[in-house]
């Protein structure tokens, strides 16, 4: 899977789950999700579950951090690196 596909999948999930009614164009690859409070710690857990189920990867507790999950680009990078490792 390429990074753009990951971003599109995650973006759809986020828009449906947490941002219903929001303009999809406003959610860019670099929109901060954790540092702006769009994703709180409980929402992060759900996103992690989604990523694991959707992409068949395993995310470790120390990887559920702002560097890996703050933007769509960060998430895509994490997923790709995980897929590459497996």
């Amino acid at each position, binding site marked *: 899977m390429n990074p753009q596909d990951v971003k599109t999948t995650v973006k759809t999930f986020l828009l449906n789950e947490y941002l219903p009614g929001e303009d999809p164009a406003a959610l860019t690859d670099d929109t901060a999700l954790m540092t702006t409070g769009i*994703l709180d*710690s*409980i929402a992060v857990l759900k996103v992690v*579950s989604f990523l694991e189920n959707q992409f068949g990867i395993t995310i*470790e507790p120390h990887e*559920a*951090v702002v560097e890996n999950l703050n933007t769509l680009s960060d998430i895509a990078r994490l997923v790709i690196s995980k897929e590459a490792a497996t």
Partner: protein
Amino acid sequence: MEATEIQTADQRLELRLTTAKAPPCRKSVRQHIAKVAEFLVVVAQFGLVVLLVQYWQLESQLLARLMWLAFVGFVIHHLLPLRFRLPFFAMLSLFAVITAVGHLGPNMGRAWLTGKLTTAGFLYHLIPGLTLIGIGLGLIGLCHLPIRFAARVGLVAVAGAALAFLRAHSQWFPDVTEMWVILGSMFMFRLMIYLYDLKHRTAPFSPARAISYFFLLPNVCFPLFPVVDYKTFCSTYYNEEWPRVYQTGLKWMFRGVIQLLLYRIIYQFAPLDVYKLSSALDVAGCMLGMYLLYLRISGTFHLIVGLLHMFGFNLPETHHLYLLASSFTDFWRRINIYWKDFVMKLFFYPTHFKLRKMGTLWALSVATLATFFATWLLHSWQWFWIRGTPLFNWKDFSFWMILAVLVLLTAIYEATRVRKRTLTPSRVTLRQRLVLGLQATGVFSLMCILWTYWSCQSWAEFETLVDAASRPTFREVMIVFGALLLICICGMLWGWSSRETSEGRRTPATRGPFHFWPSAVTVTAGSICLLAMPSVATRAIPDFKNMVARLHGDVLNARDMAQQRRGYYEELDVGGMDNWRWQGAEEPEGWSKGRKAFYRERSDFLLKDILPSMSTVLGGTACTSNSLGMRDREYQKAKPANTYRMVLLGASNDMGTGVKDNQTYENLVEDTLNSRVPDARYSRYEILNLSVAADTLLQRVLRLEEEGFEFQPDAAILSVTAVDELVMASHIRKALIRGIEPSADYRDVVQSVIRRAGVNGKMPAVMIERRLQPYVTELCRWSFQRFAQQCAQRGVRPIVIYRPVPADFSGMESAARSKMLELARAARLEVVDLSPAFDSVTDRSSLVLAKWDDHTTALGHQLLGDKLYDGLVPLLFGSPGQQQASRPKQP
């Protein structure tokens, strides 16, 4: 050390540092001047904050010294090239450890340089600090041993257990006792985080970073220290332009100073003494006060984090408007974000990830409960390192578990109900604000109750609070409602927060705008105001002087003083002794070892007396009783011929707790009388000291009737003080609980009070005392009348002396003195007011034995003795002129 473990991360950091510092090649002169001006303004503000800490004597003298060290260190640190800054900070921190733990101040250095202190004596002071550093470096070294990670963790755990064993037996090493607290504070949690980050290689590692991280400069002054995250510590180092980092630090330090001053106001003036609560409003004030006492932690954390900013550590904000939290999860996120991130990282996420197959809600529930359980255990662990004994009790456990359930319920609610999230900041409607305000009010009220439950020393105290609040008046309800309305409005205005993580990875998009100069002006003007305000205010309003004096230093408030007094008065009460020990933790070993040996219980209304011919230690000083059971010299029971005999009835200060046998004020007066012989009719003067620690007015008068009159006194001196009303209820309470009936003549008045107060011996002690409070004046009045009447019947001259408290920590002396004197005069008693005795003493703390013991010093007894002699002689024997005229010629 694995200095190059994470090359890329290290390189990124160095690159960022360089980028942050490096000026543009063609920086204009104007820009350069602007930077210099900004730096000078930062230096000036830092200087003002240091002066504030010193002027208001915040926390300890040690902190003021550390602030000066940090100030000088900051200037050098900033002027150093970037690559030397972190090593310099590490060295400065180690220097602070050595000087602070070893109590090596400038005076010590001066004394050594001038030869007043030997080199051996100077080196001796280095031992605690060097020991701490040695142990610390050893622990860091264990983390980096070239063996399997699990083996390293095992070794660190073994070392930790060994150190904990030594901490529990710190008396084995009297030279380094204080070191354990700081060592524990530095390593007990940070070592866990360090190992975690080392395992996952989430941050760069180097000796300078490790030393800086563990021996953090302000830690030597604060055993309660934010659990700084190692990764955050590394990643936020100069991650923004230095003016912004420094100015943020200054702003937070100033905020910390304000919070510490607010804490002092609350500590000194809020109605925190459960024994004295008389209305529902008092209870509300007490609960609010207990909750707001947390400002001390909040203030010190601001000071600590602000100080670290001055060395480039752009750490996240702590305690962000936590009083306005809109839910319990929000409260948990705001109050101590360092702790929250620590337990999330080490307990919540690992537990949740392990259990995620159970489903999100189950995993969330178990992980939350496990995290709060760990929080409880870790708080006990922290208590152990600070106090030396672990803290395991139901109250703490139930507090953390109640909070866990509240947070969990909110978390489940948030997980199952989709919160409104937006990509762009949207306008908050009035309705949303109102909901937010009401939520903030609800959380605030519940936290007040929960915090009060946690702060009360016993379940009985909490019951007493509820009892005192059980019959609120309409006015009281309206006042409480008004206060809640105010919180609601504040919540509406400032309660909005999207705060989530402390990781400090703010992006330009999420970072708020920064205005250097308005912030600098605010800090400067605020600091100058706080420095100038006391002198200006006391000049304008003289009564303000007392208030400022109480805010100025680290003195105990009325509640804690009463607690100490109460504790002291519970010599024979094991439960009370526990309270006393808790409050008086600083009391040296053996300070009052004779408390139990010196007194014996009685089965009558006097409750106790002094054992005859006993030698022991009270208040750190040798104390002897005579064969008649008085803390006094030997006297014959029958009055010798030509002797003027007086009996003194008082409590511990009159008994002379804390001074030598010949230093008590009554012995000094007796000596002066015998040397000056003010009345020729008498060749000898005796003052028999019948004072017994903790005797109330009722007991003093009863003791006169049952024992004092047997000595055929010519005069009876009843010593009274400002605290006599406060302790009256404890006497009745003890008699009630022990099932002791009042003496025959006292029965009617005491039983009447007991009946009207609605108390009985099965109630909690604190509730009995609280309910008796409205009747203590009546009992004092009756005691004075009884004293006058009994003396008149036996032809004994009754005299009341008012003995001032050595230091008016609670600010209650003036009003209480007037009341006691009024009651004495209403009973037509002659009064010698000793209040001016201490007027000449500027530093009233020199009249108090120690911080943990407010008994009068030898100097205080000397001054009291002089004043009593001056007041007593004209009253009993006429003026000196008359005495001279009536004195027959000596053979």
